[in-house]
């Protein structure tokens, strides 16, 4: 009887998703509630003091938080521009029969992601050193320019961050697209070729629509990862303090408040604002792309 119940088509999906429900109930509900509660308190060693919306009101007026949000949003938008179309094209190219020794290139492109941010951030910090021995300055010297203080200017600082990000994630995103391409039936292309479709037409009418689920996935995680970037900036400036806060991100600000100043209440408010921003952007995107609709084949 029980076995039959478990094996029924109605019940099976619930069995499949049960681990998530359990994990959510155990490891998410309490911490989330606790965090939301903390955001209304001033957390003190001697006992918490209720401040109502005080933390949020302070946040709304906080000029440094505005800088942090600006940096994070700018960074996120740039990563979307750089880390979705290009890896997709690379993947398509890689998937074609034109490229030789594919395994080697894939392995190399993927290597940066293997390094921890701690070590790669340090390497990039040395590369972007304002001292004459930094690689970027050596390149400038090669073209006859003077050394430049890369990490003291907002634009070049962002450039360094984006370069680090592209360096690390191009290979990974390419990988996502490559595995997405594997789910596309090759016969579709053959059929299209027989119908006389051009290369661009095939990409436009077959590859792109069929890669849509993968694209949505990459888009969604990129939006969050971009908004939540912290460690890259922390390593690039050897700490959370960058000149004029050019490298300060939302999570960096959360860290500054929560850890460096031990204001857990205020930090919780910062984190929840980040959550809300990320949720709004992503749900607009997900609804617009129809991910929540019942899929029709």
């Amino acid at each position, binding site marked *: 009887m029980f076995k039959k119940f478990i094996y029924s088509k109605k019940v099976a999906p619930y069995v499949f998703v049960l681990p998530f429900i359990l994990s959510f109930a155990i490891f998410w509900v309490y911490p989330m509630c606790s965090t939301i509660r903390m955001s209304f308190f001033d957390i003190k*060693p001697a006992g918490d003091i209720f401040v109502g919306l005080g933390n949020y009101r302070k946040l709304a007026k906080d000029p440094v938080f505005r800088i942090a949000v600006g940096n994070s949003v700018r960074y996120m938008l740039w990563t979307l521009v750089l880390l979705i179309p290009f890896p997709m094209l690379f993947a398509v190219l890689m998937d074609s029969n034109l490229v030789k020794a594919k395994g080697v290139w894939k392995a190399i492109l993927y290597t940066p992601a293997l390094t921890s941010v701690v070590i790669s951030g340090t390497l990039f910090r040395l590369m972007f*050193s304002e*001292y004459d*021995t930094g690689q970027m300055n050596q390149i400038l010297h090669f073209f006859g320019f003077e050394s430049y203080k890369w990490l003291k200017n907002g634009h070049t600082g962002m450039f360094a961050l984006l370069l680090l990000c592209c360096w690390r994630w191009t290979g990974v995103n390419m990988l996502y697209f490559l595995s997405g391409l594997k789910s596309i039936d090759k016969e579709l292309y053959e059929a299209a070729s027989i119908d006389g479709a051009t290369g661009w037409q095939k990409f436009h009418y077959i590859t792109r629509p069929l890669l849509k689920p993968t694209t949505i996935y990459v888009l969604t995680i990129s939006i969050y990862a971009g908004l939540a970037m912290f460690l890259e900036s922390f390593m690039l400036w*050897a700490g959370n303090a960058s*000149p004029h806060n050019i490298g300060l991100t939302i999570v960096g600000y959360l860290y500054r408040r929560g850890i460096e100043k031990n204001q857990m209440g205020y930090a919780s408010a910062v984190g929840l604002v980040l959550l809300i921003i990320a949720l709004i952007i992503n749900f607009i995107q997900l609804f617009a792309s129809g991910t929540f609709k019942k899929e029709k084949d």
Partner: protein
Amino acid sequence: MKKKILAMLMAAAMGATLLAGCGSSGSSSSSDSSDTASTDDTSKDQDSGDGSTENADDPVVSTYGDDSGTHLELWTFVDVHGAFYGKMVDKWNEANPDRKISLTATTYPYGDMHDKLLMSLQAGTGAPDICDVEVGQFPNVVAGEDNWLYAEDDAVAPYKNDMVASRLETYQGENGKQYGMPFHVGATVMYYNMKALEDAGITQADVDAVVTWDDYAALGKKYLDAIGNPDGKYFTSVDTGGTDWLWLAMSEYGEDWTGGMGGKANVQLESVKKMLKMQQDWLNSGLAEVSPDGHVDLEAGFQNILDGNIVSFPKAMWYMSRFINYMPEEKGNWYIAKCPVFEAGQKCSVGIGGTGTVVTNQSKDPELAADFVAYAKCSPDGEQMIWDDLGFDVCNTSLWTQDDFAHNTSNQYNTFFRNYPYDVLASIKDDIGKISVTKISPTINEQICTTTLNEVLEDGMDVDEALQEAQDAVDLEQ
């Protein structure tokens, strides 16, 4: 097919690396003391195995002392500190057979150790008995006072008269109780590249004759003129990423931008303005450059010193270990002297940086833990070890003038510089000022280092204007 073989080869390589690991741990028990010595030493590069062995059987879990003793757990963020405590436990057990200790020292990554400590204190469980706390993080930890920590006043009492009072004060709570024990004074002194100066015809007597910042600037001009004012060479470098210069200025005028415990923070101090304006003048006249990487204690800063681009800079005495670790080829070139002042008769130094060692009230035997910490960090036995192993300027003043301590040539710090560091320290004993580290300190620090110093020194902004902006930002937080 080829790929399969490749994958198998790689898997084999992976197994081999693992085996290598196991193999090496198997041979660990028989490994001799010369290997261990290099880890005891602050410098990993040095092959001279002069350190003593520690009696830890398992190097991964560093447990020291007597198993039968009371077990205490210690967290630190510097590996050599852990080894130092280990040695002190043995000494303690010898001296106190009735109160033996077995100590487990765990080294965590720097920032994360402080996160973990704060969380454990907040949770009321999971904290160690003893913990090293970096001075910048200390206000967060000491905020818990008796709720979180155990007061060390009784433990430190036997040594108190000999200790530099301002350093003890740094690690006190708002209630005036002693919650942390210092490693060092961190007295700020002037480091001069005497070899480079001599090449330019400047003698040690010339350096000794420097009393005020005007004298200092004049000496700098003399040096630069002598070498023909080449591009890229400066007398000193000023910091955009550190507040050492400003702390020194405040100490000279007896000011404190935090306003002390319970005071109101004010960054618009006369001393700060004077220092920043003076530095702007130096930058304009080519006497100084802005430190690459923002201060002298990072890779580019070391490079700058090694390349001889700057020949003098003020820094705390713990910077000596940077010479030993990263600039060993500079041995015999550098001379340590007291810092210049704005007006003759002012204090000429300030204590910077440090690690306060706390005992948490979650400890099973806080009294024992506190007594041990006081012994390790304040007693002559402990101070000797701190000076020899860690190279710090110790807080116990009774040792500063003792010949076998301050002039002992088996200590590498005593032989590295042109003069004995402790001779300088003893000569400025009463001139070491103190800037408080309070709840507002991280805010001031962050504002000054991210914004103000960059505006003043990089962008050439008006000092008063920049400080007004900084004050406004600080006022939002108090």
